[in-house]
């Protein structure tokens, strides 16, 4: 999983079956020091509470689909938690 910052939302009424009611957010992946790294992605919000600007963690690939209400939907990034604190050494 990686850290990410929620930077926007995507609304799509016409989408693949099984994705009804799934909220899509634009997430900027971050390195462990919370600096942007790589391109933004559209992630499904599996905690239903991530808001703009929030620090989240995101799971990728098939495991993202495992976080959805309907199994095996075409989702490759999912927000699975909101970060309260990142404590680093060094």
């Amino acid at each position, binding site marked *: *999983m990686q850290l990410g910052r929620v930077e926007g939302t995507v609304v799509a009424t016409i989408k693949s079956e099984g994705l009804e009611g799934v909220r899509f957010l634009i997430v900027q992946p971050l390195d462990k020091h919370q600096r942007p790294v790589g391109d933004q992605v559209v992630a499904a919000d599996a*905690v239903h509470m991530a808001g703009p600007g929030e620090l989240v963690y995101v799971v990728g*690939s098939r495991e993202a689909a*495992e976080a959805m209400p309907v199994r095996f939907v075409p989702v490759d990034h999912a927000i699975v938690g909101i970060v*309260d604190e*990142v*404590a680093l*050494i060094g």
Partner: protein
Amino acid sequence: MKVAKVSGTVVSTISFPFFDSKRLLICDLINARGEVDGYTIAVDVVDAGVGETVLVLDEGNSSRQIFGVDTGPIRATVVGIVDDADFGDFSLQGP
């Protein structure tokens, strides 16, 4: 699996149910040249301490087997604490 150094923890009270009361560690992935090459947030199952060298499993099916679940958004799991890893050109020792 990958060798990594635990460099921090992630505290999260709002999460997908699977992660409730699970310990999240920031693991700096170490490549074959001994350099840190990216990181992953992994669920700890061996009580690894921050600063320790560990083994990180980064594959969903295996991780789900560890937790005994059929489904769940889990990929990266800290499955071992390294005492000594010898890469030939360099080696990593535990604490």
